[in-house]
C-alpha cells in the first residue's frame, strides 16, 4: 500500500487538488511525529517524578549519612581522688556533684600547655561538655576506678567533629572558620598521633534534645512519636471501624446519612493545620488538656486520620461479596451476627491496611502539632502520654532552624530515621494486603 501511494504522491506534487487519501498520506509523517513526541512527553513526566524522588533521597542521605559517626579523642586520664574529692565509698550523689569538667580541663591544660586565657578557652571549647558525663557515668558504674588512670574515648565538640568528618583535606581558606589556627594545630597533632577517631554514634539514638549538637539525639522525639501514635491508634481504629460499619451496614439511606458521608469525604481534604486550630480552641481552651503532651497530639491526630480510616474501612467492607452475607442470613443469623461474625473478619485485612496508611500519614504530620505546643524544647525523654514531649517531624523542623552545621547533619539523620519508619509501615501494609486480602 505504501509503495503504490508513493508513486501517486509524486504526481500530485504538481496538482494542487488532493484526494482525501492523498491528504491523509501527506499528513502521516507529521501525525506520527506528533505521536512520538506525545509519548516522549509522557515518559519524560514519569521520569521527572522518579528523578525528583531519587534526587531528594540522595540529597538527604548524603547530608545525613555522617550523623551515624561521631568523633572522639582517645586519651588517658587520671581520676584524681583529691581533685574530685571522692573516695571508693562515695555515694552516687557525691559522684554526680564532682567537678569532672574541671578535671578534664586540668588534664588538657597540663598536657598541651595553652598560653593565656584565650588559648585556654579555645582549647576547652574543643571538648564536648558530654565528656564530663562520660567520666561520671564510668565512675557511677564502677566507683573503684577512682585514683586510677583510665583510657577513654572523650567526646569532641561538634566543630571538631565536623572538621574531622568533612573538612580534613580542605585548605584553611576553604573552611568556614569555625576553628582558629591554634585549635587546628592541636587537632592536627591528635590526628597525626592517631588519637582522633570516629565511632558509631549511639548518643544520637539514646539522648533527648540538646543545645549542643554533639549531644542532641532523637530518643525523646521517637518515644514521643510512639506515644502519640499509640494514642492515635487506640482511638482512631475502633472509632473509625465502628463508624464505617455503621455507615456501610446499618445506616438508613436518607438525607442525614448522605450529609454524614459528604462531611467525612470533605473532612479528609481539610488542611491539617485547621486541626491544629481545633485542638487549640477546643481541647486546650475548653477541655483544659495539657499542652505539648502526646495525649493532646494523639487526640488531634485521631480527628485528622479518622476520615482516612473510615473511607478505607468502608471500601474493605464493600469488597466483601453479598453471597457471604446471604449465606449467613440463610442460616438464620441476625444482622449483627452477619456483620460481626462474617463481614468484619473478612474485611479486617483491608481495614488494617487502611489504618496503617492512616498511621503513616499521622507519623509524618507536623503542622497541627506545632500549634498545640509540641515545639517546646524538651530535653527529657517522655515517660507517658501526659509528659511534655515532641515528635520526630517537629524535631526535624526545630533542628532545621538551627544555624550549626552539625544540626544540619542531625536533621538529615532524623529524616532518614523518619523515612525508614515510613518505609517499614508502608511495606507492612503492602505485605499484609498481599498475604491476607482475598480476591473474590
Amino acid at each position: 500500500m505504501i509503495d503504490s501511494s508513493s508513486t501517486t504522491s509524486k504526481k500530485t506534487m504538481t496538482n494542487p487538488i488532493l484526494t482525501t487519501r492523498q491528504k491523509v498520506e501527506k499528513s502521516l509523517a507529521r501525525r506520527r511525529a506528533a505521536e512520538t513526541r506525545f509519548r516522549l512527553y509522557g515518559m519524560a513526566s514519569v521520569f521527572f517524578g522518579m528523578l525528583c524522588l531519587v534526587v531528594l533521597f540522595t540529597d538527604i542521605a548524603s547530608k545525613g549519612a555522617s550523623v551515624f559517626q561521631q568523633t572522639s579523642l582517645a586519651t588517658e586520664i587520671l581520676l584524681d581522688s583529691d581533685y574530685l574529692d571522692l573516695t571508693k565509698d562515695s555515694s552516687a550523689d557525691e559522684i554526680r556533684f564532682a567537678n569532672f569538667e574541671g578535671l578534664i580541663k586540668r588534664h588538657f591544660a597540663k598536657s598541651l600547655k595553652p598560653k593565656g586565657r584565650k588559648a585556654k578557652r579555645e582549647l576547652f571549647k574543643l571538648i564536648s561538655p558530654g565528656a564530663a558525663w562520660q567520666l561520671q557515668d564510668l565512675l557511677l558504674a564502677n566507683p573503684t576506678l577512682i585514683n586510677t588512670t583510665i583510657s577513654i574515648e572523650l567526646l569532641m565538640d561538634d566543630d571538631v567533629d565536623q572538621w574531622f568528618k568533612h573538612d580534613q583535606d580542605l585548605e584553611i581558606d576553604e573552611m568556614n572558620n569555625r576553628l582558629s589556627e591554634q585549635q587546628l594545630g592541636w587537632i592536627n597533632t591528635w590526628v597525626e598521633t592517631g588519637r582522633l577517631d570516629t565511632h558509631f554514634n549511639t548518643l544520637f539514638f539514646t539522648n533527648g534534645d540538646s543545645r549542643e549538637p554533639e549531644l542532641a539525639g532523637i530518643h525523646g522525639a521517637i518515644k514521643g512519636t510512639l506515644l502519640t501514635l499509640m494514642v492515635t491508634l487506640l482511638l482512631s481504629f475502633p472509632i473509625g471501624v465502628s463508624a464505617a460499619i455503621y455507615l456501610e451496614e446499618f445506616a438508613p439511606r436518607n438525607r442525614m446519612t448522605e450529609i454524614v458521608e459528604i462531611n467525612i469525604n470533605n473532612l479528609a481534604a481539610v488542611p491539617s493545620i485547621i486541626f491544629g486550630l481545633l485542638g487549640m480552641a477546643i481541647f486546650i481552651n475548653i477541655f483544659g488538656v495539657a499542652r505539648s503532651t502526646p495525649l493532646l497530639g494523639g487526640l488531634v491526630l485521631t480527628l485528622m486520620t479518622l476520615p482516612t480510616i473510615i473511607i478505607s474501612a468502608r471500601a474493605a467492607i464493600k469488597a466483601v461479596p453479598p453471597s457471604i452475607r446471604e449465606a449467613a442470613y440463610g442460616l438464620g443469623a441476625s444482622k449483627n451476627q452477619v456483620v460481626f461474625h462474617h463481614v468484619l473478619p473478612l474485611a479486617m485485612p483491608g481495614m488494617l491496611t487502611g489504618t496503617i496508611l492512616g498511621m503513616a500519614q499521622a507519623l509524618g504530620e507536623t503542622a497541627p502539632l506545632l500549634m498545640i505546643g509540641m515545639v517546646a524544647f524538651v530535653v527529657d525523654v517522655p515517660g507517658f502520654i501526659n509528659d511534655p514531649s515532641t515528635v520526630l517531624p517537629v524535631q526535624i523542623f526545630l533542628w532545621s532552624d538551627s544555624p550549626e552545621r552539625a544540626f544540619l547533619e542531625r536533621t538529615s539523620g532524623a529524616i532518614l530515621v523518619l523515612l525508614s519508619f515510613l518505609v517499614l509501615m508502608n511495606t507492612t501494609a503492602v505485605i499484609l494486603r498481599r498475604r491476607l486480602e482475598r480476591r473474590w
Partner: protein
Amino acid sequence: MHSLPDHYGTLMALWTGVPALILLLTWHLLEGPVINHLLVAQLPADIQSADSAQIQLAISKVYNLAAGSGLAPDASLMPAVNHLAALNDRTLILNSGIALSLCLVCCVITYRRIKPQLRARTEMENIVNLLLLSSSGIAVLTTVGILASVVFEAWMFFQQVNPLEFLFGTTWSPQVALRADQAGSSGSFGAVPLFLGTLLISSIAMTIAIPIGLMAAIYLSEYASENVRQYAKPALEVLAGIPTVVYGFFAALTVAPFIRVLGTDLGLEVSSESALAAGLVMGVMIIPFVSSLSDDVINAVPQSLRDGSYGLGATKNETIRQVVIPAALPGIVGAVMLAVSRAIGETMIVAMAAGLAANLTANPLDSVTTVTVQIVTLLVGDQEFDSPKTLAAFALGLVLFLSTLILNFVALKIVQKYREQYD
C-alpha cells in the same frame, strides 16, 4: 430461649461498663472548667473584678502553687490554693466512688432482669448499634467543632478589626503595641499580601504539577506496559507519602540555595527565601495527587469511545487528545481542584522555605508569605487568647477552611457526577 448465653453475658457487660465509662469521660471533660469556675470565686475581690487575662494569670498561679513549684507564696491567693487542694482530693474520691456505684447499680439491675423471657440479643444489638452510630457522629462533631472554634474566634477578631480592612487591606504587620506609646507596631491586619502570596506559590506549584501529573497519568494509563505501570505508579505515589517537613527541609536547604546561585549567575536578584523554591518543591509533592486521580478518571473512560476513534483512523495521541481527555475533563478538573486545595493548605514547605515577609509582589524570586505560614507563626509559642494577634490566626483559619471546603465540595461533586455518567 430467644438468645444465646453469651448474649446475656455481653448485655450484662455493656450495661455495667458503658454508663460508668460515659460518666467518667464527661466528668474529665468538665472537671477543668468547673474547678476553674469554683476557684475564681475564691480569688480576692480585686482580681475577680479585673479583666479575664488577670483572672487567667491568677488561676495559673494558683495551680502552680498547689503543684508545689518554687513560686513565692502569695497570701491573697492562699484560700484558692487550699480550696484547690481540697477539691482535688474530693473529686478523686467522688468520681471514682460515683463511677463504681453506678457500675454496681447497673450490674444489679441488669442481673435481676435476666430471665429466659428477656430478649437479650435484641437489646444488646440495639446498644451496639447505638455505639456504632455515635462513632460516626464523631466525624460530624469534628466538623462542627472546627466551624465553632474558628467562627467564634474569628468573630471576636472582627469585633476588634473591621472585616473589610482584613479582606482588602494591603499591609500585614500583626505586631500589636504592648504599651500605648510604643512606636512601629501599630498592628495592621490587611490580609491581601497573604492571599496573593498563597496564590503565587500555589500557581507555581500547579504549573509544575498539572502538566507533569497529567502527562504521567496519560502515559501510565494509555501507553505504559503492565510491567512498567506496576512499578512506576507506586513509585510516583511515594512522592505523596513523604512527610511535608522533609520537603520543607529539601526546599530550604537544597533548592533555595541552588536557585539563588543560579539566579545570581544570570544576574538576577534572588531572595534567599524565594516563592519559587517553595512553589517548585510543592509542585513535585502534588504531582501524584494530580496523576493518580486523573489516572482513575482516564481509566474510567469506556473503551468503546477509544475504539470508535481508532475506527475513524485517528492515531493514539489524537484519540487521547480529542476523545479521551474531553470525555474525562470533568474528572480531571475535579482532580486539579483537589490538588489546588492541597496546595493552599500546605503548611510546612512554605513555613520552612517561603519566609515571613508579607510582601505584596508577584515576583517569584521575592520572598512572600502565605496564610498557613502566618497561622503557624501567630500561634506557635505563648500567646494570650484575646489579643487580636492570636485571633487573627483564627480569622485566617476561617478563610482557609472555607476556601478549601468550597474547592473540595465542588471537586467531589464533579468527580461523583462524572463517575455516574459512565457507570
